[in-house]
């Protein structure tokens, strides 16, 4: 059974003359317990899709069904608790003057949950942090530990979906590996559904079963893990991203630059399922 069904989603910002449609008609389905990836360059609308799913952006049209419930522009608290976000920069997404304990309590207070102390303790141990971190401030933590706090804060409401917006791109390679392993373990243990946004195809392919490649607000291709690792992607834009994740490609420079430009100018194919 599918956990998230999105049909003909279009999201815009602004109004009147400044209205811009950032996401144009995307449709996808994510099964329960699946990890679904969104990749693309900056400005392609991948974070905006997450924002609409999380309820941060209300200016959308189309239909979103989460766990069998059709979602409207207004959501109840229990609908909002169902999916939680983890942001890119752990330095910016945690209140600098609140202790970790207070940061973790806040969602519980907003949602009026009971057994708060118990839940905070569980959340900290779930992400592998010692209990005494409750009394620390964010500046006393390393980047990896802070990202663990951000994950704990997302998990504390016992969501069934985690929306991960570039969760490791501000971290060093070695710390990234720890966080990716943690996310993998959590998903297996709690049967969570993930939507992971990243610009790094290798990270997405590591964690996700299927990956949607976005360009200019639309999907150009939905590839599964096998296609990516066996190099069987079809769209030239996905090809460029796959090559890019391998590093620098030496070839005929002039031809290369022209090719890159022409593939950028190619209009994205709209996928409607």
């Amino acid at each position, binding site marked *: 059974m599918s956990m998230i069904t999105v049909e003909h989603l279009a999201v815009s910002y602004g109004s009147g003359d400044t209205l811009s449609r950032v996401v144009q008609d995307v449709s996808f389905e994510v099964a329960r317990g699946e990890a679904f990836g969104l990749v693309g*360059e*900056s400005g392609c609308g991948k974070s905006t899709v997450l924002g609409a799913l999380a309820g941060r952006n209300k200016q959308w049209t189309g239909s979103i069904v989460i766990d069998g419930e059709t979602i409207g522009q207004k959501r109840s608290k229990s609908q909002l608790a169902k999916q939680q976000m983890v942001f890119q920069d752990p330095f910016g997404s945690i209140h600098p003057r609140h202790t970790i304990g207070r940061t973790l309590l806040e969602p519980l207070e907003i949602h009026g949950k009971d057994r708060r102390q118990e839940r905070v303790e569980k959340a900290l141990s779930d992400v592998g942090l010692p209990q005494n971190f409750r009394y620390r401030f964010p500046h006393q933590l390393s980047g990896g530990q802070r990202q663990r706090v951000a994950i704990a804060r997302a998990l504390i409401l016992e969501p069934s979906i985690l929306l991960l917006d570039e969760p490791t791109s501000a971290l*060093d*390679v*070695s710390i*990234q*590996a*720890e966080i*990716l*392993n943690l996310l*993998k373990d959590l998903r297996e243990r709690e049967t969570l559904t993930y939507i992971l946004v990243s*610009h790094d*195809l*290798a*990270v997405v*392919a*590591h964690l996700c079963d299927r990956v949607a490649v976005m360009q200019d607000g639309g999907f150009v291709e939905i590839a599964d*893990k096998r296609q*990516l*690792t066996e*190099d069987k992607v079809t769209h030239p834009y996905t090809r*460029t*991203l*796959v*090559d*890019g*994740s*391998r*590093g*620098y*490609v*030496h070839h005929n*420079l002039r031809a*290369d*630059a022209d090719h*890159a430009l022409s*593939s*950028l100018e190619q209009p994205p194919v709209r996928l409607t399922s």
Partner: protein
Amino acid sequence: MHKISDPILTVENMSVEFPTLSGVVTAVRNVSFTVGREKVGIIGESGSGKSTTGRAVMRLQPPQAIVKANRMQFEDVDLLTATEDQMLSVRGRRIAMILQDPKYSLNPVMTVGEQISETVILHEKVSRKEARARTISMLERVKIRDPQRVFDLYPHEVSGGMGQRIMISMMLIASPSLIIADEPTSALDVTVRQQVLSILDELVVERNIGLIFVSHDLNLVRSFCDRVIIMYAGRIVETIAAADLDNAQHPYTRGLLNALPSLDHPRDRLEVLRRDPKWLEN
């Protein structure tokens, strides 16, 4: 022509120390390396001293920092004893630096053309008119379409990739013999990154100059550079040809390689780096 083996830059036993209230922090400890007419990558995690090394070579460290070395020789200039006046003629003219994000490193209140021309006007004392012509041909070299128009744009009016190409043209216009690029493509998208790198590659190879490429991206350095220096906690733990990186010996280098998710070698769990206190001993 010069041979690859002629070193442009020789650094022996360099340390960079920062005195703080709670004692001296050694950011870089006893590093030695040479750079010839080649592309050398410096790799390390944040705080490993890779950027500090690059800046110390240009003598751009903060005033309170103390740089010690047995020898720091750039072509005919002894970087340890050169006066500030001598350094002014070296920086920009003979060693140039490309920084990470063009949004912050270009002057926001000057047009990009003026900023590029400034380098030639300062170092080569040419007329404005000639500087403009040189700038426009340099912009063409970095594959900017319609350079006449771009000349009069302000940095906020250009995209990230174009900004970085402008930065490259600014650094190369005075024909330096060494370029230090500090994370030049980290702020760029994948497709733009390829373009910027291929322009940089082409210019470095064509002019037969040296490049120090500071980065945290292993895959990128491996595929772009000839040689890789791996830094950990201010020390060089290993120097290896980029092609041999897979056979790296040092456990830190191996750990970094295994921690990297890869499309070619998918694995279920990533290896987590175990830091060994022994790596801190020389």
